[in-house]
């Protein structure tokens, strides 16, 4: 039992769950942004944004931390319970295509970064299992 727990802790540790949440957030964000751009001319459509619930938690003082912090401004990690992001509908009718494109570019870069981090993590595990790189 103990061996199983420590093994699953090493394999599926906090890094991977944080990265998983980040990747989920970024794929959801991609959909929201594409929705905004596709509906730029639709009458009555209001711009939508995706928000981390973690920001609200931090504002309210509720801690869902999974990582240790030495400073309160450090990234506190994501709680792994439930869905962390909410879709916020703003009041803006006019969708600014340029800023949506910039958001999409940033989102893609973050997705790329997170997926490479995940790859590196899995490569490290593989090296540990195989005994060589």
């Amino acid at each position, binding site marked *: 039992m103990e061996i199983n727990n420590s093994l699953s802790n090493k394999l599926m540790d906090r890094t991977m769950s944080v990265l998983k949440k980040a990747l989920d957030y970024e794929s959801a964000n991609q959909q929201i942004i594409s929705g905004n751009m596709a509906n730029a001319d639709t009458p009555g459509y209001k711009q939508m944004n995706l928000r981390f619930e973690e920001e609200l938690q931090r504002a309210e003082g509720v801690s869902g931390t999974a990582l240790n912090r030495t400073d309160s401004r450090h990234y506190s990690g994501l709680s792994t319970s439930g869905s962390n992001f909410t879709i916020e509908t703003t009041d803006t009718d006019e969708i*600014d295509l*340029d*800023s949506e*494109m*910039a958001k999409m570019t*940033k989102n893609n*870069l973050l997705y*790329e*970064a997170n997926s490479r981090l995940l790859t590196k993590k899995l490569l490290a595990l593989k090296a540990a299992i195989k005994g060589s790189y």
Partner: protein
Amino acid sequence: MDFLKSMDISSTGMSAQRSRLNVVSMNLANANTTRTEDGTAYRRKAVIFETTPVDDSFEAQLQDSLDNKIYGVKVTDVVPVSGELKKTYDPTHPDADKEGYVSYPNVNLVEEMVSMLNANRSYEANASAIKASKEMALKALDIGR
């Protein structure tokens, strides 16, 4: 400084140039309009660009961080340009005034075309800035690959 902040800044530049182009199109379309809502001839419009802080979250203001000094651009106003309107003598025109002169807009087609080209080039420049920023970020991800 957030390395992705440059994309927000450039996107404000692109939006501003887009608005500028809209105003240029309006000027060109109304180059011969002698009657507007208030009865006078159309007067050429110009955009006012103003710097706007990119990160105006409360936290940034509080920390007085370097991000506080970074500005994007915003179109704050579309104002009519003062100056003499072109007057032509034509008593048969329905919009002629008491002396028989018709006022035409002070729109100079050549100036508007140049303004349009400038807006175009600025838009491209901002798009290149976003592309450069993206490439830098991708190169950073290649470290240790």
